[in-house]
């Protein structure tokens, strides 16, 4: 049975989607010294895609993202593990963190640590996992019983 989409929900999701993604990126970068981090950021990004799914079913989800969810998962894992390996290659212990600071003219002095790359990995893994979950909810044969028409 197909239903009409809710216009209010649709418009709200369109307005919120990119804002939520930006917020998730803010949380990711702020996470080292402030509330946030890769996990929280990843969850907020997942919420953005979750809203897309709620508003338009799995076809809306697949329209909003073309990269396979497994790629997010894999690249995220690679990021996290390679961050650990880099410190190993530079003669330190596995996962040992280093702090960099760079003078970016407009932004002033930006201090960051190698933990950020690990956090990016976590962000991608959480996002990939949530996307996989949402896609699996659509049904094994690729059809979604809750599919709604635009």
């Amino acid at each position, binding site marked *: 049975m197909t239903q009409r989409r809710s216009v209010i929900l649709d418009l709200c999701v369109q307005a919120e989607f990119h804002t939520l993604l930006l917020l998730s990126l803010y949380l990711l970068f702020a996470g080292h010294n402030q509330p946030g981090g890769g996990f929280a950021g990843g969850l907020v990004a997942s919420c953005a895609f979750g809203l897309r799914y709620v508003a338009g079913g799995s076809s809306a989800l697949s329209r909003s993202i073309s990269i396979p969810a497994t*790629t997010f998962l894999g690249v995220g894992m690679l990021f996290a*593990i390679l961050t*650990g390996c880099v410190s190993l290659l530079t003669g330190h212990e*596995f996962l040992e*963190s280093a702090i960099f600071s760079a003078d970016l003219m407009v932004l002033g002095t930006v201090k960051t640590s190698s933990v950020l790359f690990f956090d990016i990995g976590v962000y991608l893994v959480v996002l990939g996992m949530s996307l996989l979950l949402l896609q699996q909810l659509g049904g094994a044969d690729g059809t979604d019983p809750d599919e709604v028409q635009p």
Partner: protein
Amino acid sequence: MSVLLVLPIVLPLLAAALAIIAYNHRTLQRIVAVGALIAVVADSVFLLLAVERDGVQSVQMGGWPAPLGITLVVDMFSALMLVISMVTVLSVLIYAIGQPGVDQDQPVFHPVYLVMTAGVALSFTTGDLFNLFVAYEITLAASYVLITLGGRREQIRSGMTYIIINLLASTLFVVGIAWVYAATGTVNMADLAVKIAQLPSGTQTALSMFLLVVFGIKAAIFPLFFWLPDSYPTARMPVTAVFAGLLTKVGVYSIIRTQTLLFPQHRPSTILLVCAGLTMVIGVLGAIAQNDMKRILSFHIVSQIGYMILGLGLFSVAGVAGTVFFIFHQIPVKTALFLATGLVEQSTGSTALSKVGGMIRRTPLVAALFLLAALSLAGIPPLSGFVGKLGIIQAGLSAGEYAIIGVSLVVSLLTLFSMIKIWNGVFLGTAEDPTLRLAASEGETRLATPLLMRGATVALVGVTLAIALFAGTLFDLSERAAQGLLDPSAYIEKVLG
């Protein structure tokens, strides 16, 4: 040197990441997975050599010093477990690639299998109680996927039992860690070894028994084994084989590690010996009552765990050395038995004793492989099981524990009986099932199985024969492992510096 300790965990995880990116490229996934595991096997052999030469190896994650940071530490016991489990994991992976319908239809098989490998490697190398919990969770999360892979009805049903019992055990584990932390203020095992010794003896006993129950569920010792024969046989054969060989042994490893390092004793422990005896007897009696190869072998997993706990319960160098050697032999033997069973299932479609028969004429190779592994399991000289059991029995006799040794000898005979039962049912005799008999009468006397499946089984049986051949060297190493376990001063000094 620190790289060697990290690689058994990092390489499988790295390969898992690549394998999941190559989601629909099976050949690429296979190359990455096999390549990573070959590298891990090589790495663990180097690690064993390093430990043999220089003693205990340790490294601090992220450079944070012990006891605050997470320690990875490998002593002789860990190194031996790591080598044999990684060899087994590699053989089963090759078997799984060879078996039609295991990794072909399941893009997640390779990534999940590699994550499980990383979890097992971390369990053997971690020197931190909470990190051990993390290692368990990594292994379990992957095993939940593997045990229900394929999604048949009975798999989901028994998978639920498996998941619920393991979630319960994990919850108890966290509670146990909280108690340990509340009592001592640390979770670093070397630090705990120092601090638990200063606690009142009542607290020590409570913590020791609580952790014994937690790991007892994972290791399937009596009376906490009921979940195992129910859940293992329903999975695909390579999965059952690797679970049977490895996962319960990770539980046994943790029991041995915690009972020797955190709660050292110098007299035989009655409660462990009683548990060991009951585990052996109930396991073997359960096996005798079954009429399916997979279920018989699953009950034998439980029964053999009893021998390991028996050797530990003696708390003597000879007893623990026997246990170390016995686990080292059990991991490949048990896995090889399941792989051989898988070959029978692959060629006949069944593992029920009543349905299959006369396999010795149709697949003589499988019959020979099964016979070698089965006799080794039963402890027939000169195979590897004999050496392990002999070590444990001698230790028991010199400790004066005659009753439990008597029990273990009877259980050994019953094990032989139950292996003969499989032999008579499956390899001798004739098939009851009319379709199978038809296949045999149509001149199809040799049933073919994929080359890789046979090759992997041959390799693993070869490993068990090699264990028998080099029993002297390996028993020396086991003795050194036992000395290190019962006198952990080198371990503690290496970690705490």
